């Protein structure tokens, strides 16, 4: 059953990559990359169980943290042009 979940996650990650490559706007690309990151967390967790090494969950936890921070940073960058200039545009 872990193999089934792994296959589904891999297929969805492929579709996310297609959207990230041909997404018309920057927001589509960020959405696809964010979704890809969430799927990566799940894939690491499932792979840990598939190979019988649940220690992989630590990696999944770290990746979940990084993914969220990365998305917020990219969104702030596309909105304000830099990562610290929020005050000038009435933030």
């Amino acid at each position, binding site marked *: *059953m*872990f193999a*089934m*979940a792994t*296959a*589904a*996650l891999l*297929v*969805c*990650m*492929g*579709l*996310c990559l*297609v*959207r990230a490559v041909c997404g*018309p*706007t*920057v*927001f*589509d690309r*960020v*959405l*696809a990359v*964010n*979704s890809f990151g*969430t*799927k990566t*967390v*799940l894939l690491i*967790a*499932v792979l840990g*169980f598939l190979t019988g090494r*649940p220690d992989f*969950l*630590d990696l*999944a*936890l770290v990746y*979940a*943290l990084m*993914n*969220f921070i990365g*998305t*917020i940073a990219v*969104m702030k960058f*596309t*909105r304000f042009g830099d990562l610290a200039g929020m005050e000038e545009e009435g933030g």
Partner: protein
Amino acid sequence: MEAFLDYSAWACLGLGSFLVLVAGLGLIRLPDFYTRVHGAGVTDTLAAASILVGLMLQSDAPLVIIKLICIALFLGLTSPTAGHALVKAAWLRGLEPWTRERAAEGVEGEEVTPS
């Protein structure tokens, strides 16, 4: 008891895999950015939760279960937040939503007016 846990884990992982596939399809098939956020974001949260619950049912070490609960809590908090931030950034940037009328007029829903 063992068989019951196995069947429950099967059901949770099957539901999660199905929702993951639906999210991928929605990301590809839906017409514009806002609908894609709906398709990907809404299913993402439940898919992550149900896959992680399925893994919890298969593990016996308490530490593993605690880690899985941490991941589930974190994903449940951050995935909707990231979706909200994305949509708000796109809206403030002036991305127009797709409607049938605008599509019939031949206006693409993908144009962003540079701010």
